[in-house]
Structures are given as structure tokens and as C-alpha cells.
């Protein structure tokens, strides 16, 4: 009997934890969507499909779904104009720097682009963004 209650309690706790974790994620994604719509959508388009030869797709991008968060943080903070092949294609527009985006906004917009359209990658936390920024600073020196 006691065992059962304990088990019930444990499962309940676990469920609440899961739901609140999901909630945190959901709130981040809602913020991220807003930032995407005002700051990124013009170029990368609402379906994340980009514009051929101009702006790369974020949907299905190996880098966007990949592990190098620091690179993406740097792209947002410093802009990106390197004309390197992205998934085998070249893009001739330049991405402007957005130094005014706060660390938590960067985490939210990255979480959003990594979990929208067909993308299914991990959420990006504020701590990861902070770590990325200091890593990028060290690399710059």
C-alpha cells in the first residue's frame, strides 16, 4: 500500500517536472518565434526555406541542427558574410550583425530555428549562449 502511494507520488512528481520543463521550452519557443518574425523572417522566410542563391535555408540545414552553437551565436552577434558553401550551396546576400539582441533572446531564437519546420535539435539554454560568447571572445584573441 505505502509502496504504491510512493510510486504514485514519484510518477506524479516526474510528470510535473516534465510538464514544467516542456513549459519552459514552450515559452522559449514562443519568444523565439517572435524574434524570428521581426528579425530573421524577411531573409530566411516564414518556412525557413530561405531564398535560392541569396539567403540560405535554416530548415534542414546541417549547421542549424548541428552541435556548433558558438558559431551560430557569433553569426547573430557579428553578422555573416563569408560566402562559404552551406550544404553545398553559395549565397550572395550578407547577414547583418544584431549586437542589440540580448543573450536570452539569442537562446530563444536559436531554440526556435532548431525546433521549427522539419528541424528537431536540442533547445539552446542561456548558459550555453553565455559559454559560447566567452568561447568566441577567447578565439578572437
Amino acid at each position: 500500500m505505502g509502496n504504491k502511494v510512493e510510486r504514485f507520488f514519484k510518477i506524479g512528481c516526474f510528470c510535473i517536472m516534465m510538464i514544467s520543463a516542456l513549459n519552459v521550452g514552450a515559452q522559449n519557443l514562443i519568444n523565439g518565434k517572435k524574434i524570428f518574425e521581426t528579425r530573421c523572417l524577411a531573409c530566411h522566410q516564414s518556412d525557413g526555406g530561405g531564398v535560392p542563391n541569396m539567403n540560405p535555408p535554416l530548415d534542414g540545414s546541417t549547421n542549424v541542427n548541428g552541435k556548433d552553437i558558438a558559431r551560430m551565436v557569433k553569426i547573430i552577434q557579428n553578422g555573416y558574410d563569408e560566402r562559404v558553401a552551406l550544404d553545398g550551396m553559395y549565397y550572395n546576400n550578407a547577414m547583418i550583425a544584431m549586437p542589440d539582441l540580448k543573450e536570452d533572446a539569442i537562446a530563444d531564437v536559436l531554440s526556435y530555428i532548431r525546433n521549427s519546420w522539419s528541424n528537431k535539435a536540442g533547445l539552446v539554454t542561456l548558459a550555453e549562449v553565455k559559454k559560447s560568447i566567452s568561447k568566441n571572445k577567447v578565439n578572437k584573441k
Partner: protein
Amino acid sequence: MKKGLSILSLFLLVLSIVGKAQENAGLRLPAGFKASLFADNIGSARHITITKSGVVFAKLSNPNKEGNAIIRLEDANHDGVADNITGWGKYGGTGIYVKGNSLYASSNEAIFKYELNSKDEVVNPSNPVTVVSGLINRRQHESKSITFDKGNNVYVNIGAYSNSCQTKDRTPGSQGMMPCPILDSAGGIWKFDGTKENQTYKDGKRYATGLRNVIGLDWNTETNQLFVMQHGRDQLNTLFPNLYNDSLNAELPAETFYAINEGDNAGWPYVYYDPSQHKKIVAPEYGGDGKKEGAKEYKDPAVAFPAHMAPMGVLFYTGTQFPEKYKNGAFITFHGSWNRAPLPQEGFFVAFVPFKNGKATGEWEIFANGFGGNAEGVKVINTGKAKARPVGLAQGPDGSIYVSDDTKGAIFKISYNK
């Protein structure tokens, strides 16, 4: 027997549906016109040009899978489909033009010249003559389109490496530089001698200025005048959100068609053209508020098209195959917008501009539609999903016109048979 019949009829039904989908290569055209797919998947085809014998040359924005960036297409058996396709050239670019026995092609910095033999084959694919080099290429608006007058002068656009000459390009609130320092070497049309070699800026002449970026241009041989299509500025809403909302941005500014005389100034970056006010308006980077009218000295457009549709090619029709109304009028390709987002995109068609006595009437109409793969009345929402995006235009010796696409690399052939 009965079963056999129904299978047969099902088969016929499927055939007719498939056949219907392919009709006119998926394009919607005025009555009496037909389209066929002259070629497909040749790579990102930008401008095209056609010799007197009907050989088509296409310039690709980047080398294709075979590593070629200039493609020669010949329809040897005259069935409307290219059957002999070869290529060469490692440099990406946009411009290509046949003049006499010479084929001119441009990279994003230079213009090269090849010689054609009597079969319209290129004699010197690996060592062309450099006609002009050292033209500015700073990534943005870097393509160099070319056209010729009736003589041997070549006109090349040099696009501004900027959206609106802000101190900080495409940065919210940043002010415009005064005067805009870009205009001395870009943001206009330059004229060079097509017969000379190794020219640079100092050998050419700035023929027209105040043009942000031109990709489509053609010489009107009837009026002996250059016509160009400017790509209007982007991002009024994201750069000046207190003055322009998303729906204003979707309609501003017009894509403008100009009849150019030597020395003309179309006013970029200081003004833009508002198609609903029918006025040149001072740009917000230069103190504009969306209403203040720009200086009279700047050129007015011959035709104003809806915003952001990205005009890519201009062709004055000189053939006799099409009905009389098309003679000496201009076809213009619209690549399809991306700057109208979050509103649905526009363009992805070929427009026709009627001319009367050498002047545009100011009217325009859609000639060929459906390149984006969108059904009638349905808009392309996201540009990346468009099936094809029209770019280059050329007229064949029989008076048919050809339209290129730079997504996968289709070439459509459009003809008229009464």
C-alpha cells in the same frame, strides 16, 4: 473484357491528367501561344542569347554539376527541344550577348569575348579576350548584365553594394551618407567599347547613375535608346518601423522601368518611387517621412511595377511571329519577390509592356504566368518553394521567345501559332 476496358479507360484518364499537367510546360499563356520545355536542369541559368542560326547560349550564376558556367544548346532536329548541349567556362556570372561573330559573357567583375565559327561553335573557349576587368564586386548586387547598342558599344550595369547607402548597411535607423560615395564606381550603367581589350573604369564612361541595381536591360532599336529595370530598395519596414508597417513595405517602392538618355540620374539612394502616390519620395535615410517629395531633377519611370518582384530580363520584341501588338513592345521577367514577407510573394511571371510610337503606354500585363508552380489565383508564399524563377529572355530567329530559370535551370520556348 469489361475489366480490361475499365483498366484501359483508367489508363487513358491518367494519361490525359499527366498530359494536361505538362501542357505548355506548366505555364499559363494568352490564347494562341504555346510553350515547351526547351531544356531543363542545365544549372542556374541567368541571361540567355541566341545566334542567327538559333543556337542558344546561357550564362550560369555558378558552375553546374559538370563544372561549366556557360552552356551552348542546339536543337539540331528542330523539335523544340535542345538535343546537343555542351558547356565550358569556370566563372559564374549573369551577362551573355551575341554580337556579330562574337559571344560576350560576363563574370561578376569582367566582360570576356569569344569568337564563333560558321557553325556557331566557340573557337577559343579557354582563352577569351578580356574586354573589361576590375569592375566592383562586393557581393551585394554583384552581377554584371550586358547589352549592346546598334554599334559596338557595350553597356554594363554596376550594382550598388548597398541597400540604401546607409552609414551602416541594412541597420535599423542608420542615416544615409551624403553624398553617397558608392555612386562614383557603382549604382549605374557604364559604357565601354566592345571592340577594345583590357579596359578598366578609366576607359569607360558612366552612362547613367542613381540606379541601385539593374539586372534586366535592353537596347530599343526602334527608338535607339537604352531601357533598364531597376530593383527598388528593400526593408523599409525593418529599417524604419515607425514610418512603414509590413503592408506598406510590401507595396513600396515600385520596381521601375526607365528610358535612359546619356547622363540620366534615377535618384537612388536619395529618392524612391511610390506607385500609389505616383511620385518620387525622399528616402527615410535622407530625411524622408514617406510623403516628402524628391527633387525634380531625378528621372521619372516609364512604367512603375509592384514592389520587390525582382525584374531580371528585358527584351524588345522585333519579330513577326507574335501578333502585331507585341511588335517593339518589351517583355520583362520577374524573378519573384522575397521582400514582401510576411505577406505572400509576387512575381514569378513574364510581363509585357506595350509601346506606342516608341513610348511605353504606362500599362503592363502578365504575359506568361505559373513559373512558380502555383495554380491560377494561388500565390507563392515562400520563395524557396517556387518551382522556377524566370530570369533571361531572348528572341529566336523564327520570332519565338525563350525564358530561362535559375532554380534548376529550365529554358522555356514560347511560340505563337494562329
